């Protein structure tokens, strides 16, 4: 059964000169145990799409369903990990992780054990009492991950989660996210990742949804059947990367480009 169904979604925003269409006619599904990546150039509505899926914003037309229920308010079965980590600097690691559980109204005696479990599975043991400023970027994003997983979401939504990290740290965290996703004892069941980095998408996902430039439309859904861990230098990997690049650069409305536009600015 599909966990998420996105059906003919349009999104536009009003401006002084009329409405601006961000995305048009987006339809796809995320099934149980899928790892799906969405790639596309800046401004194609990737992050907006994640917000719509979680119910933080509403489509202008079309519908989004979670387990056949229409998403019209924030869906507690999904949790988001952000590029900027979005931690509260005045709270410790443990307090940041428990924050979401408190907001969901968990009983305080259940919160402690839950926080401990997710601090442990994300490798944060020893940092419970640390404040975000004491942590490296990689450790901060682990807190973001622990906070998201602590609510035991069916779907983990990740919005450019590795783009503010140095390359080695990003490599480590990508592998850890795969490990958590594959562990049947742990959430999430499915991951929906937004990335401007095509190699990263192909390295991680089973399926890559390729969006065009604004207004974002689905150009293709590319299946990735390479065994993990995936060798970025292999011919098969290179072919897939090339195919996705070509789709984006030739599928847009203006002249072909050899590279995607720059990454969104990294958070400080």
């Amino acid at each position, binding site marked *: 059964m599909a966990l998420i169904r996105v059906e003919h979604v349009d999104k536009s925003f009003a401006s002084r000169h009329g409405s601006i269409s961000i995305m048009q006619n987006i339809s796809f599904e995320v099934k149980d145990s899928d790892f799906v990546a969405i790639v596309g150039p800046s401004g194609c509505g990737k992050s907006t799409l994640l917000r719509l899926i979680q119910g933080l914003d509403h489509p202008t037309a079309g519908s989004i369903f979670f387990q056949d229920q229409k998403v019209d308010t924030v869906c507690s079965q999904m949790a988001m990990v952000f590029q900027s980590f979005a931690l509260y600097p005045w709270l410790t690691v443990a307090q940041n992780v428990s924050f979401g559980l408190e907001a969901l109204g968990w009983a305080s005696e259940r919160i402690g054990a839950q926080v401990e479990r997710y601090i*442990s*599975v*994300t*490798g944060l*043991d*020893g*940092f419970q*009492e*640390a*404040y975000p400023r*004491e942590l*490296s970027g*990689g*450790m901060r994003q*682990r807190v973001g991950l622990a906070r998201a997983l602590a609510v035991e979401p069916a779907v983990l939504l990740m919005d450019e989660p590795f783009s503010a990290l*140095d*390359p*080695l*740290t*990003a*490599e*480590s*965290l*990508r*592998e*850890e996210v795969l*490990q*958590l996703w594959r*562990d049947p004892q742990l959430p999430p069941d499915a991951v929906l990742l937004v990335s401007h980095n095509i190699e990263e998408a192909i390295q991680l996902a089973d399926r890559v949804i390729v969006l065009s430039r604004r207004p974002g439309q689905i150009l293709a859904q590319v299946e990735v059947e390479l065994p993990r*861990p*995936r*060798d*970025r*230098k292999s011919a098969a990997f290179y072919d897939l990367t090339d195919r996705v690049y070509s789709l984006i650069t030739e599928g847009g409305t203006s002249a072909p480009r050899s590279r995607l536009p720059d990454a969104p600015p990294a958070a400080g």
Partner: protein
Amino acid sequence: MPTTFPKCNPTEMMGLLVLLNNHKGSEDVALLADDLDLEIDEIFPALEFAEVLQLVKVVEGRVTFTDLGRKLVAVSIRDRKAIIREQLRKTTLFRTLLRALESAPEHALSDEDLGQIISLTTTPSDEAVQNIVNWGRYADLIRYDSSEQRIVLTRRSTGGKSGPGPSHPPSPPGDAEEGSRPSPRNSTHTAPETELRTASLAHVLG
């Protein structure tokens, strides 16, 4: 030149090991760096400390997993910590630090105390102190009290002859072995030598 001080954080080193695993566990150092569009010197700190922890060995510019390194990448995030903890305990740096903590009042040391300990072999800097604290915390060997800026021994590691014994100055980390340790870039030393060195250190440190 002191080489056993971490110049990377644990996540960066794990990143290097994950990368090496993507390359089937053995790769030319330059090609490994190139995979992430990095220069060799940018992966060097991670490579160096992975070698100190006996997780990889570098021979003639090629980096290869040790058995332990291969095991590390195969186990869960949680279990990796236990391996790192045991390997850190074997380093001169952490042997010295843990001994100092065991002998210190309340099993606690200030940032300055830690700076003093490492100043015997390197110029103490905030970055050096922070890296060491980071590794110690990651491995759950120490805790850090940020309000008082002091390092505290994690209860688990208070084994053996801890307690209010006679307080003697900690042994300086690094001795002869620090200076003679070859740089991993052109290193040809192998794991048995490293173990030998660790064994002789155990003797030195009692």
